[in-house]
C-alpha cells in the first residue's frame, strides 16, 4: 500500500500510509481506537462506505499489479478474505453450510435440467470434504456438522476463518480483532493456525489490541496513530512497551499537562464508593470494578473499546443490569432503577446521544427541561391545589435560553427540534439537560464522540467550569486519553472489565498506555 489517504467529509483520518507485506508473512496492525486501522482495512477490502464517502487516494499493489476494488466482490476475486469483528454467520445452518454458503458444489437433477441451474441439488459429500479441508488447513478441531447457534463463541470465529480459507484463490487474509471474543486457549489455537496459514503461503494482516499476540505470531509490526503509520518494524526487534509507547505517545514531549490540575488531596471525602460492580452491557461488560470517587474532583475513566469503561456509568445509573454495591453520600443506591439514581441527585449524559440522550423529534426546550420536570417537579405550575401539574412553558423557555446562551448552542430558537442540530450542539443540549437537574454528581460518557475539535474544547470547558464553579463531582468516561489528561484530576484505566489502575492525570501517557493493555481479554 502506498500513499493511502482518506478523509471523511474533510476530516482527515488517514494520511500517507505506506507499507508492504510479503507472501506468507504475518503483519500485525495495532493502534488506539480511531487510529484508522479499520478504515484502512475497509479501503483494502473495497467496502461500500469508502466509495460512498468520496473514495480514497493512493494506490494498492497486489503482486506488483495496481488494484482498485469497488466492491468487496472484487476484493474476494483478487484473493483477499476478511474476517470482521462481528460474526456474519447464519445461526441455523451447520458449520459446513456456512463455510460454503453460495459457493456450494452442485449436482444436476431432473428438475434443474428443465428449469435451469438455480434448482441444482447441493453435493453434500463434496461440501463435507471441502469444509473438512478448510478446517484442516486451519489446524483446529471443530465439528463441521454442528449448527452455528449451538457453538461456543470461539468455534464461530473459527468457522468464519475456515470460510475464508475454503476459497481456493485466497492470498491475503485480514483478521479484525479475531481474538477479542476468544478465551486464552482458543486464542492460542488461533495463533497456531495463523502460523500454519503463513507456512502455506497465505499472507495475514492481524489486527488486535493484545500486543503479546502480535509479538508471538507476526513477522512485522505496523503501529498506527491518528491516521499515520508511526512505526513499521520487524516483530523481533520490538517489545510490548515499545509498541505501547508508539500507540499512545502522541507528542510525548509537548503534551500539555492538565492546565489547572487540582492538588492531589487524598483526604477529600469519598462521595461515591463503588464496590464489586458487575454490569451486563453487551460489548462493554464490567466484571469487577471497585472505585472511590472523591468529592469535587473530575475523575476520568479511560481504556480501550470493549473493556467495560462504558458499562460503569450505564450500570450505576440502572440502564443495564448490574450487581454489586454503590454508595453515594453514605447511602446505598439501589441498582437497576434509573429513577432512584436520579432522585439521589445523580445525573448521566449518555454516550448514545441519538438513542438515549435526546428526544430528536421534540423541541430543545423539552429536551433540556424534561428530566428536571419529571424528577424534581421543576417547571410545573400546580393548579387546583396541586391536583394538576401544569407545564410551565415560560419557565421552560427561560431555562433553555439560559443554557443556550451559556453553552453557546447554535440554534434558530429554543423551539427548534433537537434532530436539526449538529452533533456538537446536540451534545451541549445533553449537557444542558444534565445541568438543569442541578445534580451533585455527574457521569459524562464519551462527551466528545463524533464532534469536531472546536466543539470539543467548548464541551470540555463547560464541564470543567461546571465542576469548578458548582462544586459538582464529575466522572468523565472517554476513549481519548489526551482529552482525559487535559480535563481530569485523576484517571482510572479499565481493562478487561476491571480497574487496571488509578493515576493522577499528570502521569505520562506511556504509563496509561501500559495499563490499558494490561488485562485485555
Amino acid at each position, binding site marked *: 500500500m502506498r500513499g493511502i489517504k482518506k478523509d471523511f467529509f474533510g476530516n482527515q483520518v488517514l494520511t500517507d500510509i505506506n507499507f508492504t507485506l510479503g507472501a506468507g508473512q504475518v503483519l500485525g496492525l495495532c493502534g488506539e481506537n480511531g487510529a484508522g486501522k479499520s478504515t484502512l482495512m475497509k479501503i483494502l477490502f473495497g467496502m461500500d462506505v469508502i466509495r460512498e464517502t468520496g473514495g480514497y487516494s493512493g494506490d494498492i499493489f497486489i503482486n506488483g499489479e495496481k488494484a482498485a476494488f469497488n466492491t468487496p466482490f472484487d476484493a474476494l476475486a483478487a484473493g483477499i478474505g476478511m474476517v470482521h469483528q462481528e460474526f456474519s454467520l447464519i445461526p441455523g445452518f451447520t458449520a459446513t453450510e456456512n463455510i460454503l454458503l453460495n459457493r456450494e458444489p452442485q449436482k444436476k437433477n431432473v428438475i434443474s435440467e428443465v428449469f435451469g441451474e438455480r434448482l441444482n441439488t447441493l453435493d453434500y459429500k463434496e461440501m463435507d470434504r471441502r469444509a473438512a479441508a478448510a478446517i484442516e488447513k486451519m489446524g483446529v478441531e471443530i465439528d463441521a456438522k454442528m449448527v452455528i447457534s449451538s457453538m461456543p463463541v470461539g468455534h464461530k470465529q473459527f468457522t468464519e476463518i475456515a470460510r475464508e480459507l475454503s476459497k481456493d484463490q485466497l492470498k491475503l487474509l485480514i483478521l479484525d480483532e479475531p481474538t477479542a471474543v476468544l478465551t486464552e486457549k482458543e486464542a492460542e489455537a488461533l495463533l497456531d493456525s495463523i502460523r500454519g496459514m503463513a507456512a502455506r503461503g497465505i499472507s495475514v494482516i492481524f489486527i488486535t489490541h493484545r500486543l503479546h499476540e502480535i509479538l508471538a505470531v507476526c513477522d512485522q509490526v505496523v503501529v498506527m496513530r491518528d491516521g499515520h503509520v508511526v512505526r513499521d518494524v520487524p516483530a523481533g526487534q520490538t517489545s510490548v512497551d515499545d509498541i505501547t509507547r508508539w500507540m499512545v505517545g502522541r507528542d510525548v514531549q509537548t503534551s500539555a499537562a492538565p492546565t489547572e490540575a487540582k492538588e492531589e488531596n487524598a483526604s477529600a471525602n469519598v462521595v461515591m464508593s463503588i464496590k464489586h460492580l458487575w454490569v451486563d452491557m453487551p460489548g462493554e461488560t464490567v466484571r469487577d470494578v471497585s472505585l472511590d470517587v472523591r468529592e469535587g474532583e473530575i475523575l476520568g475513566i479511560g481504556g480501550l473499546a470493549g473493556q467495560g469503561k462504558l458499562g460503569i456509568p450505564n450500570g450505576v*445509573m440502572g*440502564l443495564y443490569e448490574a450487581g454489586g454495591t454503590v454508595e453515594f453520600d453514605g447511602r446505598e443506591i439501589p441498582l437497576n432503577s*434509573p*429513577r432512584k*439514581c*436520579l*432522585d439521589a441527585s445523580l445525573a*448521566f449524559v*449518555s454516550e*448514545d446521544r441519538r*438513542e*438515549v*440522550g*435526546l*428526544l*430528536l*423529534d*421534540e423541541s430543545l426546550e*423539552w429536551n433540556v427541561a*424534561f*428530566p428536571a*420536570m*419529571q*424528577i424534581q*417537579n421543576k417547571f*410545573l405550575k400546580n393548579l387546583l391545589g396541586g391536583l*394538576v*401539574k*401544569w*407545564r410551565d412553558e415560560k419557565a421552560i423557555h427561560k431555562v433553555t435560553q439560559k443554557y443556550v446562551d451559556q453553552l453557546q448552542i447554535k440554534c434558530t430558537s429554543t423551539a427548534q427540534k433537537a434532530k436539526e442540530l449538529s452533533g456538537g450542539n446536540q451534545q451541549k443540549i445533553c449537557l444542558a439537560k444534565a445541568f438543569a437537574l442541578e445534580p451533585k454528581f455527574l457521569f459524562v460518557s464519551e462527551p466528545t464522540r463524533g464532534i469536531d475539535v472546536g466543539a470539543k474544547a467548548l464541551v470540555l470547558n463547560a464541564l470543567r467550569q461546571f465542576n469548578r464553579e458548582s462544586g459538582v463531582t464529575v466522572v468523565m468516561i472517554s476513549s481519548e486519553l489526551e482529552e482525559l489528561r487535559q480535563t481530569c484530576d485523576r484517571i482510572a484505566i479499565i481493562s478487561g472489565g476491571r480497574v487496571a489502575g488509578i493515576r493522577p492525570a499528570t502521569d505520562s501517557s506511556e504509563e496509561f498506555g501500559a495499563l490499558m493493555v494490561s488485562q485485555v481479554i
Partner: protein
Amino acid sequence: MDKAERQNWFSQLINTYGLPRLIITGFLLFLFIMAPITGSDLPTQFTNVFNRFSWNAVLVLAMVPMIHSGCGLNFGIPLGVLAGLLGGTLAIEMGFTGPMSFVVAILMATPFAILFGGGYGALLNRIKGGEMMVATYVGFSAVSFMCIMWLMIPYKNPSIVMAYTGVGLRNVFALDKFYANVLSDFLKIDLNPIGINLVIPTGSLLFIALLAVGIWAFFHTKTGTAMTAVGSNPAFARASGINVDRVRMLSVILSTWLGAVGVLVYQQGFGFAQLYTAPYNLTMPAVAAILIGGASVNKASIGNVIIGTILFQGLVTMTPTVITALIHTDVSEVIRIIVSNGMVVYALTRKTEGAK
C-alpha cells in the same frame, strides 16, 4: 409570483399540509360545489356532515393517547367499544331511561374500560414494536368472544333481549326510550322553522369539545408530557427515570375509555345500539380519519382529530348524494373503502412523517 416561486409555495404547502390531505380537501370542496348543481340541498348536506362528525369524533379522539405514547394506531379500539356496549346495555338492564341512562352507561363502562385497557396494555408492553398488528387481532378476537357473551349474559329487559326466546341480546335495538339524542338535543339549533334545512347538534359538539379540551390539557401536565416523551424516545424516557411500561399502560387505558365513551356518543346520535360484529366496522373509519387529519403513527394532535373527522365524514356523507347523482351508479361505498383503507396503507408506509 413567478413560476419558481409558485412551485416553491406549492411544495411548501404539500410539506406542511400533506399531499393526501390536500387531495381529500380538494375533493370535498369539489363535492360541496357540485352539490347544488346536482340538485341536492346544501344545508341538508351540512346537517349530515355535522351529525356524522358529532357521532364519530370521540372515537377518533380515542386514537390520540396511544399514538402519543408510541403504541401506534389503536386498531384495538373494538375493546373500548365493547366496554361501552357493556356499559350501555347494563344501564338499560338496570332500568335507567332518558339522559340518566347515558350518565350511568358511561359510569358502568368505566370499570370495564379500565379492566380491558389494563389487560390490553399489559399485552402491548410485551410486544413492543408490533403493537398495531397484535392490536388488530386483539380487536377481532375480543369482538368474537363478546358475540358469545351477548347470548350468555342473562339480560332480562324486554326492550333489548331477543323477541321470541327472551334469551340473549338483539342484534340492533332502538334507543329512543334511553339515551338517543340526549346530547344532540341539548341546545339544538334548528333552522327548519325559517325554511333552512340546517340542524346543529350543539350538545354533542359541546361534549366533544369538553373531551378534546380535557385531552389537550392532559398533554400539558407532567404525566401527559411523560407520555409524549415515551412515544418520542422510550430509551430517553427510561434514562429520565420514567416507568415506560406504566405510562404506556395508562395511555392504553385512556384510549380504551375514550373508545367506550365514543361508542356511546355514536349510539346516542345514531339512535340505535348495534351489537355482535358491529364493533368491527368502527375501527377503520376512526383510524383513517385521524390519518387524513394529518397525524402519523407516532404524532397526533387534537387538530388532527377535528380536521380528520370532518374531512372523512364529509366524504362519506357527500359522495352518495353527489356522485350518485352525477354518474347514476352507487359508488359511495367503494369510494369510502378506497379512501379509508388507502389512507391507512399510506400512513403505515411513511412511519415517521406527520403534518402539523
